[in-house]
């Protein structure tokens, strides 16, 4: 519909923007006329919420008599629990010197002595940070979740890779699993699997299975059809083709699947602690409820170190045979691929596994492992207290200083943004009739993305209205919109700066990496310290979270503008400003729109986490549903509504780039 307006190139020349402007005007008028009607205010006691809460109570009451629990769910819980316990007891039995030695040895085998050094330093740092026990618990939980995720995900992925029907059926499920804010499924999960390590492992698996499936499927798909044909024409059975052709050829990409699964599992560490899963998450949650950044920071660092160490090891394995010095660059790029199928961007390299180890690395690994295990008999069982570094007090002091010093500035920023952007927009969205918002979304999505996505977007909004959570959804939409706006402005500025200056880019990259690897919760605290519990705090935290991928996409987009075009423009006498505005930005439009789309979904994920620090609306409903039994139903509905909102926003913006919604991954 957007282009129909320009069909009459008459002399009056109706400008291109006439139709959109007219419709915008129409909507504005409709808003003024119908304002305050059809607003669907929030009702905490809505019958559908209460019905869900009752259902929950009913299930809970029959937990120990219902066969589904007795013969199915409880066994899953027991099984998962025993896998975790097995890992934990092995890791604990090794003792700290043993674990350091064994990890070092594994790393040596995976990628040579440099990687081994990284692993030894990384694992030792858990002790230095004074977090040895929780780190080991986290490691065991991640190991259990990853093992089980792969056990389920790899076969499913292979199947999906071989059959497009299966793939079509699995993809939407995976989408929901990943867009669903983790909080939203914690409450039902507790209902079915209780709390503790098994439930934590299962929660982690829900999040880490999708990349295992997706990337495995991708790896299988990429296997060259000629190899498959050759094999079948030689009379191989399907089974033989699978094991002798597909799997060996898909190996290096599948190593990425493992890596990505590990990273996803690590990003769940904190949230799993909310249902009493052991590990580093506990320190972060404790910091949050004491409002002490000093408590959170070491745990945050330990999680990042764990991620980097495991990442280097896995990437070395994927790239085995290449010189080990390449490890640095690959590791530094990794967080970029945190999106769901991000691994696909990496070209697959043929590798030969095994039989590549020289005698030296085998010997080195053996010496490390044996030394570690022997030392664990000699050295004290617990990490010596005087080998730890404690900077809780210093960090807290620094934060307090920042709070006091910047208080006026930060309050000003917060209040101005709230008064000028947040409140008017929220007022607009919550006072507009629901049908008008739905129609506006439909038209917008239609223009940007086409009819089908527009209808999906409309369906999502209607479902939100039907679920009875419209008002809060609109409030959340407001926070997301403002956060996306800020994210895009910052992302564009930094991205353009990085594209124009390689030196700036080099400085910026590690900062972005760190920002993405840190558990999202760690941002909440400085934000909390500076901006109190307000919607702005949630926005601030989600901006930090969503800016890095936006910067990268913008930078890459501008870099991708062909140099010949740039040269031509420059030789035609363009100033560098003109070059940017008239050439580079327009040509990078696709990348920038993609960045917007990515930013939206990541922001949405964080705004729900922001429910913990004053984001209110859907995020808070989910949090309440999780912590008050009587509000279970509302929390569940709010979680579903968040997914609908996410799908809606994705459909509205996906026209920028017609890749499927699956790309828009976010990690919380």
């Amino acid at each position, binding site marked *: 519909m957007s282009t129909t307006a320009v069909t009459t190139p008459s002399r009056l020349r109706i400008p291109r923007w006439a139709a959109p402007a007219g419709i915008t005007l129409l909507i504005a008028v409709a808003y003024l006329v119908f304002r305050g009607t059809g607003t669907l205010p929030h009702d905490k006691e809505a019958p559908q919420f209460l019905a869900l809460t009752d259902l929950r109570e009913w299930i809970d009451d029959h937990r120990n008599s219902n066969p589904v629990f007795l013969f199915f769910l*409880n066994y*899953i819980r027991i099984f998962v629990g025993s896998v975790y316990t097995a890992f934990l007891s092995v890791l604990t039995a090794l003792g700290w010197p043993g674990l350091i030695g064994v990890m070092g040895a594994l790393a040596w085998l995976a990628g040579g002595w440099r990687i081994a050094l990284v692993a030894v330093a990384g694992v030792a740092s858990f002790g230095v940070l004074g977090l040895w026990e929780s780190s080991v618990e986290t490691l065991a939980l991640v190991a259990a979740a990853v093992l089980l995720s792969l056990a389920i995900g790899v*076969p499913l992925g292979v199947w999906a890779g071989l059959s497009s029907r299966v793939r079509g059926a699995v993809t939407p499920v995976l989408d929901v699993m990943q867009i669903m804010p983790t909080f939203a499924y914690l409450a039902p999960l507790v209902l079915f699997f209780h709390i503790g390590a098994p439930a934590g492992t299962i929660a982690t698996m829900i999040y880490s299975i999708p990349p295992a499936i997706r990337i495995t499927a991708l790896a299988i798909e990429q296997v060259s059809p000629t190899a498959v044909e050759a094999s079948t024409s030689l009379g191989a059975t399907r089974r033989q083709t699978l094991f002798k052709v597909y799997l060996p050829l898909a190996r290096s990409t599948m190593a990425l699947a493992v890596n990505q699964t590990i990273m996803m599992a690590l990003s769940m560490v904190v949230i799993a602690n909310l249902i*009493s899963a052991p590990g580093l998450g*506990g320190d972060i949650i404790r910091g949050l*409820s*004491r409002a002490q950044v000093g408590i959170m920071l070491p745990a945050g660092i330990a999680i990042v170190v764990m991620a980097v160490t495991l990442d280097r090891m896995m990437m070395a394995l994927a790239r085995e045979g290449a010189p080990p010095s390449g490890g640095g660059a690959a590791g530094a790029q990794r967080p970029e691929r945190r999106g769901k199928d991000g691994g696909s961007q990496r070209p697959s390299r043929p590798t030969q596994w095994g039989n590549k180890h020289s005698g030296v690395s085998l010997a080195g690994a053996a010496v490390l492992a044996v030394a570690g295990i022997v030392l664990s008999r000699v050295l004290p069982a617990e990490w010596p207290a005087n080998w730890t570094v404690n900077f809780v007090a210093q960090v807290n002091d620094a934060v307090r200083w920042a709070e006091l010093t910047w208080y006026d500035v930060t309050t000003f920023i917060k209040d101005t943004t709230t008064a000028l952007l947040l409140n008017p927009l929220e007022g607009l969205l919550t006072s507009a009739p629901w049908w008008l918002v739905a129609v506006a979304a439909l038209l917008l999505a239609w223009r940007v993305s086409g009819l089908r996505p527009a209808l999906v977007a409309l369906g999502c909004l209607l479902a939100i209205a039907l679920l009875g959570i419209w008002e809060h959804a609109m409030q959340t939409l407001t926070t997301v919109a403002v956060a996306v706006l800020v994210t895009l402005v910052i992302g564009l500025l930094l991205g353009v700066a990085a594209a124009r200056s390689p030196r700036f880019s080099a400085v910026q990259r590690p900062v972005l990496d760190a920002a993405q690897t840190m558990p999202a919760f760690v941002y909440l605290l400085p934000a909390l310290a500076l901006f109190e519990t307000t919607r702005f705090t949630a926005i601030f935290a989600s901006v930090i979270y969503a800016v890095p991928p936006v910067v990268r996409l913008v930078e890459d987009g501008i870099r991708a503008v062909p140099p010949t075009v740039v040269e031509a423009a420059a030789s035609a006498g363009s100033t560098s400003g003109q070059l940017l505005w008239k050439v580079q930005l327009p040509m990078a439009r696709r990348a920038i729109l993609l960045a917007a789309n990515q930013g939206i979904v990541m922001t949405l994920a964080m705004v729900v986490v922001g429910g913990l620090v*004053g984001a209110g609306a859907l995020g808070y409903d989910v949090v309440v549903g999780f912590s008050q039994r*009587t509000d279970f139903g509302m929390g569940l509905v709010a979680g579903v509504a968040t997914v609908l909102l996410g799908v809606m926003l994705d459909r509205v913006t996906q026209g920028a780039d017609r890749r499927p919604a699956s790309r828009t991954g976010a990690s919380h």
Partner: protein
Amino acid sequence: MKIRLIAGLLALGLAAAGCGGAKVGEPSSSAAPQGQSSASGAGTVKIAINPWVGYEASANVVAYLLKNELKYQVELPEIKEQLAWEGFETGDVDVIIENWGHPDLVKKFIDEKKVAVSAGSTGNKGIIGWYVPKWMADKYPDITDYKNLNKYADLFKTSESGGKGQLLDGDPSYVTNDEALVKNLNLNFKVVTGGSEAALLKSATQAQDQQKALLFYFWTPHWIFDKVDLVRVNLPAYTEGCDADPKKVACDYAELDLDKIVSKKFADTGGKAYELVKNFKWTNEDQNAVANDMTNNGMTGEQAAKKWIDANQAKWQAWIPK
């Protein structure tokens, strides 16, 4: 594949525990993970940590004594109130050291499911209420009556309260009737959740230091009353049963006798550890002293507990089972 996997899991499970089905938290279930919690001999005791510092003070003192006097292992998992009760069922929690009423949970887990029992009073009296800083009560003497709150609603406006006055609440998991109170008392206020005890403390301190207006949810026992002058707002007086229907509450919070809740299993097999928990009883002043050290004097829970224990031999000696 998935079907086969599920079938496999199922078969595995059935084989592991005969054909009786698995009941979560039942000690008889032979495949129970984690060697289950505690409690015979010097085992492990799991005391849930609820998110307020007074609770932690009690938990740390009990934990210190369990560790150092009775040689138990102690775990202190951070679990919020409602979930901690579920922990009784699974064996993830042995003790909730300070329970604030929760009649619904008492009914569910003690009366119906019979997985938990009360282990008696902590000696602390808990009172939840609405507070304003003292400077406000001095300046507007009638503000302490809820009937006059609407008159002053404008003072309490913030960026988050949508044109109404702000009533600041704490952690989403806390016991609260505030939404219902605001509605049923027709107050022109909006409940805004700060998210944590820390958020409340910070706001209260700022309200005193910078003479900012603040109406907030708070409770005693708490050390803050020694540092910040606060005045309670009088809501319609509590009468027995006036809070029976959570939607219709229009009265103040009841004074609660805080008690300890333990899992049934811990009560039956917890031995000396259970005895100690049952005997644990101290005053609001005791708790405030430990909590204050933890929050304001930079001590860890363990250090603060040790300091109190070193100074109060006579009190805790009486708790140690003979």
